[in-house]
């Protein structure tokens, strides 16, 4: 059976590849990204929590742990300066995980099989959702920051602090997308969504999420000081705690590069498994 007869080619068999790989990747990726963004309007109940959660989380953490800034050694006297960047990164990672949700829905409805049948490179099936996650993340970062600043958060080193927060947000969205897609391709069931969310929650909270290293006690100090997401959090937070320095920037960038690559590889191998 020739590969040139697509009507009889199964999803697991190689499909005809267009000659220009970059062109054939960008167009379908853009199409998938646009479709994913349209889903925000069509199924807002699936995206709104990713937007509302960081907003309420910033408020809730700042309010709940308001008194913790009174502990000697806490790096700021504004609890929202500490917790708002955390909420932003949590929202960004959920923006990525939300892509996993919609992919599971497509898998369950059979629509994803049709996407896989299309003669497009596999990387387009990852790039499209990633672009969508970045757009969602930018939306989350912008709205949560605006609200945080209105509620009393203050930049301590000018707009550069916002830039590092955006970069950290995009990084978390990349990690969340890779993780969400990888799990979606493996579980193919919406109940895996709980695992997507909870694992990212756990990973982010095993950092300096709630308290700085200086005031931690016991096991958490050991874990948080080794968790690469602590560096991402530091990257996002430093513009609200003091000066933006290269010493606090590069560990976060490195962590994003490594974790983002690993997460997208996890998604790619999951897609390959789905094809098998």
């Amino acid at each position, binding site marked *: 059976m020739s590969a040139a007869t697509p009507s009889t080619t199964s999803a697991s068999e190689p499909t005809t590849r267009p000659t220009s790989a970059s062109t054939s990747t960008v167009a379908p990726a853009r199409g998938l990204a646009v479709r994913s963004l349209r889903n925000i309007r069509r199924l807002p109940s699936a995206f709104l*929590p990713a937007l509302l959660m960081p907003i309420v989380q910033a408020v809730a953490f700042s309010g709940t742990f308001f008194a913790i800034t009174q502990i000697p050694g806490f790096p700021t006297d504004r609890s929202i300066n500490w917790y708002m960047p955390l909420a932003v990164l949590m929202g960004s990672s*959920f923006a990525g995980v939300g892509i996993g949700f919609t992919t599971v829905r497509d898998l*369950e409805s059979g629509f994803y099989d049709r996407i896989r049948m299309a003669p497009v490179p596999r990387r387009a099936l990852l790039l499209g959702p990633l672009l969508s996650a970045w757009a969602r993340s930018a939306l989350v970062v912008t709205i949560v920051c605006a609200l945080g600043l209105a509620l009393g958060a203050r930049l301590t080193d000018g707009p550069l602090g916002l830039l590092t927060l955006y970069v950290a947000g995009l990084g978390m969205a990349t990690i969340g997308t890779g993780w969400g897609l990888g799990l979606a391709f493996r579980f193919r069931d919406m109940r895996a969504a*709980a695992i997507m969310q909870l694992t990212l929650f*756990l990973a982010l909270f095993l950092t300096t999420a709630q308290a700085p290293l200086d*005031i931690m006690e016991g096991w958490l100090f050991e874990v948080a000081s080794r968790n690469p997401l602590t560096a991402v959090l530091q990257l996002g937070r430093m513009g609200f705690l003091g000066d933006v320095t290269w010493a606090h920037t590069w560990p976060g960038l490195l962590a994003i590069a490594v974790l983002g690559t690993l997460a997208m590889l996890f998604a790619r191998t999951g897609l390959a498994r789905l094809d098998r």
Partner: protein
Amino acid sequence: MTASVLATPEAAERRQSFVAQTAAMSQRAVLALWRQPAIVIPSLVFPLFFAALGASAFARAIELPGFPPVRSFLDFALAGTIVQGILFGSLTGATALATDIENGFFDRLLASPTSRLSILLGRLAGGMVYGAFQTAFFIAVLVPFGLVVEAGIVGIAVMLIGGVLTALAVGALMSAMAIRTGSSEAVQGSFPLLFILLFFSSAFFPRETMTGVYARFADLNPMSYLIEGFRDLTVDGLTASAVARTLLISAGLAVVTMAIALRSLRRKLRAR
């Protein structure tokens, strides 16, 4: 021959009775949880994780002005851990209900001579069993790490009943959402909102240390009083106030959310 003809409808009637149907649906719900540990483990591990996290991150917070006198942050955290676990466990049950709606199983149940109420109650009963298990599990796991429940065995029994009622209350609310949306994605997506509901309460920090509007929200959130009932049993011992708060608040919430769930079910049935 005559006897068998008479016996058959009786037996069929007995099998189809409301209690039997509810029991069968409950059994199905519990077995679904038992057979898919990957789905339920997060609702056991995650709250324990937060208890451990708080015990380490906020160990020094118990010295803050306004913090109620407690032996350790772990004692303080138990109540939040239990209610948090039940919230997440109920989400799993509601997601399963939404999945039933999505894949058509719910419609097949409706097409069968099954009591409509038993479809809902079966799911909720499964969640209630799981709620009791979670409460016992959290206490059992945290005791070796230094947790002390001042109210003793009787207090733990009260907590178990409170856990069952809380599971019913939360499960009914989430089931209403599952019935209304028919989307497991939408139900799963509500997870962060449940989390936020917890944070707008005294689950993780005492209301005495909160200020302003936020403190007022926590004061208005019934979750605060439910949690403080559990907490008083842990920290202060077996008092009438603690028992009443643990049982009555969870029971009251269950009545309200059951009414919402039943209304959603009736609305869905009318729309068919």
